[in-house]
């Protein structure tokens, strides 16, 4: 399966979906001009991935900001991963957030309450982020 890789921009997050190397990650800011156009390939990729997934899927979310339209798409991504989890696969959601970003933890918690797959919370400091 071909990996899906997006470079991070000021308005769209960086994305790595790489089945072969087991890297699944989305990070940065998300307020794309055309929400649907941006997320459709990602959601399609995930839909295809869960048909033939790896033994273990560890998905890293490391978002700085997302608008409400992106929020629903992120939830859709999580629902897809949850489907994978519910069908008996090992799935872990890693929710990284800047230590002082209370809203990002809250969002993560709200998402975690809406899915069954385990969500791990990882705070990081600004200094760590600059590394």
């Amino acid at each position, binding site marked *: 399966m071909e990996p899906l890789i997006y470079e991070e921009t*000021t308005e769209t997050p960086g994305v790595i979906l790489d089945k072969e190397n087991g890297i699944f990650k989305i990070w940065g*800011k998300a*307020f794309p001009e055309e929400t649907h156009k941006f997320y459709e390939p990602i959601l399609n990729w995930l839909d295809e991935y869960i048909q033939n997934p790896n033994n273990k899927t560890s998905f890293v979310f490391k978002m*700085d*900001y997302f*608008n*409400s*339209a992106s929020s*629903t798409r992120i939830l*859709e991504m999580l629902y897809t991963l949850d489907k994978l989890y519910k069908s008996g696969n090992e799935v872990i959601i890693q929710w990284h957030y*800047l230590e*002082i*970003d*209370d*809203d990002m933890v*809250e969002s993560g*918690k*709200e998402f975690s*309450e*809406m899915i069954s797959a385990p969500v791990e919370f990882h705070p990081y400091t*600004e200094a760590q982020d600059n590394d």
Partner: protein
Amino acid sequence: MASLKRSIFLTLLGVFIIANSLKAQDLSTEQQKRVQQLTKNLQEALKQDNYSSAASYSGKMGYIYWNGGFYNKAIENFNDALEFNSKVGNRNGIKTIRYNLGLIYSEQEQYQQAINQFVKGIEIARSLNQKEGILNGLTNKASALKGFGKHKKSIIAAEQALNIAKELKSLKLIRRCYGLLAENYEAMGNSQKSIEYFDKFSMLDKKIKKEQMKQLEDETQKRVDDIQTEKEQKEKDLSERTQQLKSTKDSLTETKRLTEKQKMEIEMQELTVSKQKEKLRNERLIRYGLIGIVSLVLVFLIIIFFQFRLKKKANKLLEKQNKKINDQKTEIEKQRDLANRQKKDILDSIEYASRIQNALLPPDYMLEKGLSEYFLFFKPRDVVSGDFYWMTQKDNKIIIAAADCTGHGVPGAFMSMLGIAFLNEIVNRITENKHVFSLQANEILNQLRNYIIQSLHQDQDKSDSKDGIDIALTIIDFNNKKIQFAGAHNSLILIRNNEIIEKKADRMPVAIHKKADKSFTNHELDIKEDDMIYLFSDGYPDQIGGSKGRKFMSRKFKELLLEIHQKPMEEQKQILNNKFEEWKSGYQQLDDVLIIGTRLKTTKKPKLTEKTGAYDWQGYKILIAEDTEMNFVFLSEALKNTGVDIIHAENGEIAIEKIKADPDIDLVLMDINMPKIDGFESTAKIKEINKNIPVIAQTALSIDNAEEKSKEAGCDDFITKPIKLKSFLKLIDNYLKQKPKD
């Protein structure tokens, strides 16, 4: 070469041995599929009374099950095959199946049954005069008899078999017979005979194995030889082709050599001819030179003429193209003007929409009247906004909300209009039907959620209809010095004596949501003079900016509020604005921004509008005849603030008793639908006791001719459920005032 041959030989030998030792262990999916197919074929054959095919299908299935170790299934299928074969009289088939059954029974150590099958099979083989068939049957029978412990009988059968085997020169079966005999004698304790047969067995065994090995070797050798021959053939082919190629090449070289020779001869001839030609040409050149010069001049003239014409034509074309370009330019300008006009139209519409939106937002004077000290920092991202604030006043209560609809701009604005309309409707309904005291902040949000889900036809399963509202809503009760708060994503911040008290919002929107069946949380807290409360959307804390392009963040936002909360309202707003602009410099505003701040002045009550609970019925007594507890609680709640005395009668009988006992009752609220004595009958009885006492019937609209019937029974008036509070109170007031208290 020899070592290569040897290694190929060894590899092939290995493959043969492994392949021979492999056996299927379970009924694989492929075999299951075969069984399914065979079952189908069998049914088909039976339909056509084709028993011969049916026997064959059943037999095949029997083999599959037998191989898979499913003996019962195998027996079942073979028995079927037996039956089908009998129908067509296929005796050979019957014999084979009997032998198979015998072997299966033997494998399962059911020797008696095995022997029966073999005996029957041998009988058929004898009648068909199949020597091999008889031999097979006898050896198997001997083997079964041995297993059964009938050694003498087994020996007889084995000896019979041995004779036939010798006759047929079947080494393997001779060996088997020796083996059987050796084992039987051993079991009988006859060691001499046993050893004798065992020696014969092992000698023959060695011979057979040697032959098998030789056969295997031969086969392998043959393969190696085949490969070798093939290889040699190929090499031979190759060398032949190379030879062919070489001879072709040789002939080509020869041809080339000949051609070159001819070429040289031809060239020599040509040279002579060309010399003669040159001479001729020189003569001609002088003659043609003159003609050439004249022609050249002529050609030049013609060219100049055509050039001139061409240029003229080109100019014409250019002119045409210029005109076309001009036309296109006009068209583009037209389109641009149209686009500009459309853009202006759209902007005008949005501008106009924003006027409507602004008109729907609470006007300043309303805020001023309700909140003595407040500021409003409202900064839509676009002309119209998805954020909105809302305020209303009911008696001594003020309800304020700061809301944020999904999206911004026009889509957000549509939602905000809905939100404002729904909030007005909900609060008016609650205060109309119940009472101001029953206003609950969370109940307003619960109802708002219902309205939104229903009106937008939201469905949990559809992903495209999740538009909703995040909202912080607070009810300030100046009388009781309390506030209530409920929030969807948007929290409330109260700052008292330099200390932040945060009331966290529920983590769900006002929209369809996984938790949409859960009620919003109602927070209540006491307020003190000069408490500062803030309601806001996430636009401010979520703004990207600063040196690293990060969010401003809630934590920093709260710190900022704490820093400025004691400053005058206008200054707070100014600081918030300055900080915002400073933070976002170089970045675009991402969302609408809204912050409402107000300093609570509990001593200074808001100027009240119309008072709905302004009835004073102190000293009056009302009897409520009502069998349903809920309805009674509701009525007494509705009457609570009037100061009236309430007596409860759980049914008609009690109501009559209470009227008899207490002549001071001023009015009766009579439920029509009660057990024992219903409302109509009770009213008639009460009127007999005291015909001046006003009785107001409460009826559900579903009762036929309720009005007529109540009048008939002597009721003075009637109200229909559900009761509208204002008209209800007014009605009672009318009756009580007719009979003033002295």
